[in-house]
């Protein structure tokens, strides 16, 4: 008799859970799709978080000069050897010798986006922008020199 009762209880619980499932899926059916249609929504609904690490960028001061003092800390902290700094030694009017940034080689293809370089920089001279559209057709084009304006140019997404 107990199994008889169980059988009908099985029917009842089964039907109830099936109905719940159907209700849930109908609720989802009436929701708006969450799909983002990427190339179309680039300038409308696309949202990239501000802190997303897209590519490295040199921060410039108000005169348009890089804040970088070519100390090489970022280069030393980079686990992949992504950054190579070239610097000249120049003499300031006060007669002190100083390094001046000549080229900031940044290989986007081997960058880990670990942000250790940004953490290490004492002057806040580099930062990650959230420009994620980094695809190019040739590998060579990933080797950037951030002192060149065309390589340092990134788009900031909202």
């Amino acid at each position, binding site marked *: 008799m107990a199994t008889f009762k169980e059988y009908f209880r*099985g*029917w009842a619980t089964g039907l109830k859970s099936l109905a719940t499932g159907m209700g849930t*899926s*109908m609720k*989802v059916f009436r929701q708006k799709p969450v799909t983002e*249609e990427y190339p179309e929504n680039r300038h409308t609904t696309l949202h990239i978080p501000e802190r997303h690490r897209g590519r490295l960028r040199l921060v410039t001061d108000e005169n348009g000069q890089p804040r970088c003092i070519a100390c090489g800390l970022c280069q030393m902290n980079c686990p992949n050897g992504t950054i190579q700094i070239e610097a000249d030694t120049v003499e300031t009017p006060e007669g002190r010798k100083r390094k001046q940034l000549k080229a900031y080689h940044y290989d986007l293809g081997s960058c880990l986006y670990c942000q250790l370089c940004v953490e290490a920089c004492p002057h806040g001279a580099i930062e990650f922008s959230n420009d994620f559209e980094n695809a190019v057709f040739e590998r060579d084009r990933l080797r950037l020199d951030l002192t060149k304006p065309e390589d340092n140019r990134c788009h900031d997404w909202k």
Partner: protein
Amino acid sequence: MNYYDINSLNQSIHGTLSSLMPEGLAITLEGIAVGLLIIVLYALLAIVLIYMERRVCAAFQCRIGPNRVGGRGGLLQVPADVLKILTKEIISLRHADRFLYNLAPFLVILASIFSFACLPWNQGAEILRMDIGIFFVLAASSIGVLGILLAGWSSNSKYTVIGAVRSGAMIISYELSIGLTVLTMVLLSGTMDIQEIVMEQEHLWNIFRGHIPALLAFCVYLIAGNAEANRGPFDLAEAEQELTAGYHTEYSGMHFGFFYLAEYLNLFITAGIASTLFLGGWMPFHIPGLDGLNAVMDWIPGVVWFVGKTFAVVFLLMWIRWTFPRLRIDQVLTLEWKYLMPLSLVIVLLMTLCVIFGLVL
């Protein structure tokens, strides 16, 4: 009362053709024309159904679905897929049973087209009409399982054999529930002729006439029909994750296309038979006593009613498919033999009692 009866049109076409040529030739020509019509309709409906499935499935998963090929709605996606599949090579396997391997897709599609030809599209638009119409549909649709078993067996692959055996066990089991629920509606209608079944729902659809037993039978029919069409949650014959594609793993090109077509058209046929048996086929919605409403409903052509109801049931079946997870083979058989089959026997008994004591509306 019925403005869209095309019987007179049929007769005038037949009369014209017979006056131009011997009657035998005229009948042959008409047969060929109707056959072509069925095949074209079959292919077109498959395209519509596949598109609908993809959009509905996407909506159930909060996605958009195909929306690039052919403008905003992605309307050309499925035609493009069809063209692609037509151009693909039909491979031949080394250790396959060549004859059965090539025969199997045709058996599946044959079963599907036979049952498809029985659907009541409109008054006068029945293609195969016989006294035992609904019985014929059950018999013809069972040829499909033979095709599936042959496909699985002849491909010489473990996946296909497992898929085919699962499918065979499942379809043969659920045939019982389908047969019993169809029997229930035959009890209510008192005929097996599909057009008669439709005509007899002139005053009220069967699902309302038969109230409780008919409603229960409708539910059981939908579940069993879903299993019969090898669709989720009963798609364990294909079970992508375990069996790659089940019984049609080794097929390519248009042979695979046939299985795919048949799968979607079986969905349509299941829904079409459901709408014939329970929702009145092409019969407009009538409520006894409300003559004004009935007259307005009569203005809508029967084919619109039939296709509308069928697609409503198709949506119901898709809703089921995209809600529930796949069952294991033992769960599938338990559901049938322990739950649905006893229930359908009870429904048959209940319907018999209702009909005997005049409790139907």
